[in-house]
């Protein structure tokens, strides 16, 4: 049976060149980067090379990159670190209803410590209106954090404009760019970004490697205290192989980005065009301004989990969206925020393509997906017209 992986937003395989770049740091160059002898020097050199190529991918300076263990850690670090560093100036933070839970739950945590949080709405395409950001800013506002691109519905946010407003008002601006860095060009200068989170496994690097870009001159309180690693801003002996891998993956992403986009976008468009021919299947997220490898839908009268099971039985591997919808019997907060009714939000499914996706894969998918929808609708009690009444949106963003 074919095996078609359409969940590249969940994670990616490590690129062979990345793996080659990591291997020496498990064995011959195993040293602690703080050691002053040869072993340490080799490891330190690997980290600094990786810092340069990681910075280069986003048009930053090497010293503006702090390596972390994940995108979630970078998001926590950014939000807590900026909140604590600036709490004497004010205690108001602005985020949106489309944020990842690593931003959303961190903001909720800060609410319990006396910070006030504004959760901005999004429109039907999942877009945050920059005018809403401007209106929400008060004298107390110290931080704005708006996601760059949604892993769930693919929408790319008007981050450059929000960054411009933040700059004008003297508010620090963070963006969670985990889903976008490595998939679309990201330039922290032209996007007016002060802090940005991203993760290596989104662009064929290893898991366990992420980074926070912190613009030179922005003060941040560390999340982890201890040693002098990462300029004293993130203690702990570095994961040298993972960092070396992130550096190599960044180098490849910079070199191949346009090629990757040009390859994957027509395949993704073919998938979307075909899926939208199916009755009562709707695209979620922005139709045009979205991640080039991302297709997300809701199918009425069907459970997303049921679709995933049948797809997986046919060798197609995809996701249903947020952890809430898949694990906790909750409707996805992002889908509810863009106005999808609760019962329709249950029928959510996300397909994300990558370098390894072929034209044959998409043809096979395009044959299989409509058959699965028909089969599920035949057995679905909801297909007879249940509209649903309950409100089961996520309480984390209320």
């Amino acid at each position: 049976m074919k095996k078609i992986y359409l969940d590249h937003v969940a994670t990616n395989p490590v690129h062979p060149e990345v793996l080659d770049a990591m291997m020496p740091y498990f064995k011959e160059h195993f040293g602690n980067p703080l050691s002053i002898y040869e072993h340490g020097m080799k490891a330190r050199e690997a980290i600094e090379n990786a810092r340069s190529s990681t910075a280069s991918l986003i048009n930053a300076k090497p010293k503006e990159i702090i390596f972390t263990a994940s995108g979630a850690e970078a998001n926590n670090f950014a939000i807590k670190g900026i909140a604590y560093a600036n709490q004497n100036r004010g205690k108001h933070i602005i985020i949106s209803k489309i944020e990842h839970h690593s931003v959303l739950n961190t903001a909720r945590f800060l609410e319990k410590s006396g910070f006030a949080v504004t959760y901005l709405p999004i429109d039907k395409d999942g877009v945050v209106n920059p005018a809403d950001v401007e209106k929400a800013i008060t004298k107390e506002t110290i931080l704005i954090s708006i996601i760059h691109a949604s892993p769930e519905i693919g929408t790319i946010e008007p981050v450059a404009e929000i960054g411009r407003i933040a700059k004008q008002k003297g508010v620090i601006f963070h963006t969670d760019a985990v889903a976008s860095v490595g998939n679309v060009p990201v330039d922290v200068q032209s996007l007016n970004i002060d802090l940005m989170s991203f993760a290596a496994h989104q662009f064929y690097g290893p898991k366990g490697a992420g980074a926070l870009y912190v613009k030179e001159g922005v003060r941040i309180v560390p999340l982890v205290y201890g040693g002098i690693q990462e300029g004293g801003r993130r203690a702990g002996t570095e994961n040298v192989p993972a960092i070396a891998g992130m550096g190599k993956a960044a180098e490849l992403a910079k070199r191949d980005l346009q090629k990757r986009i040009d390859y994957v976008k027509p395949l993704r468009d073919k998938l979307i065009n075909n899926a939208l021919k199916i009755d009562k299947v709707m695209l979620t997220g922005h139709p045009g301004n979205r991640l080039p490898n991302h297709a997300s839908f809701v199918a009425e009268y069907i459970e997303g989990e049921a679709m995933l099971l049948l797809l997986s039985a046919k060798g197609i591997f995809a996701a249903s969206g947020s952890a809430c919808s898949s694990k906790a019997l909750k409707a996805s907060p992002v889908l509810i925020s863009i106005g999808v009714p609760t019962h329709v939000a249950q029928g959510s499914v996300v397909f994300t393509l990558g370098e390894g996706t072929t034209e044959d894969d998409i043809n096979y998918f395009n044959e299989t997906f409509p058959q699965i929808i028909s089969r599920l609708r035949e057995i679905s009690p909801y297909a007879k017209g249940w509209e649903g009444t309950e409100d089961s949106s996520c309480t984390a963003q209320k």
Partner: protein
Amino acid sequence: MGPSEAALKLVDNTHLRFLDKPVKADATTDIIYMMCPMHLLTIEEKIKEMERGQIVSILTDYDGALEDIPQWCNKTGNEFLGIYEDVDHYKFFIKKVQA
């Protein structure tokens, strides 16, 4: 502590039932400081381990649980016995009804 006014504004409080004293529970799970969706995942797992008729107590400080836990009980057919407000957290009591 009791739910703050701000917390009560956050939730649909039509299902809330507060207790004057805690109920004797057969099992307790402490998820204080954990956030959405850990409360729902935890109940699901805990309920699986319990016998029908037994009572589980969930300790949490997550305000969203005020709405989610009664709704979860409603949806899954388990009995929501009520909430006891402790000093710095809530204690939710749920009786397993469904297998």
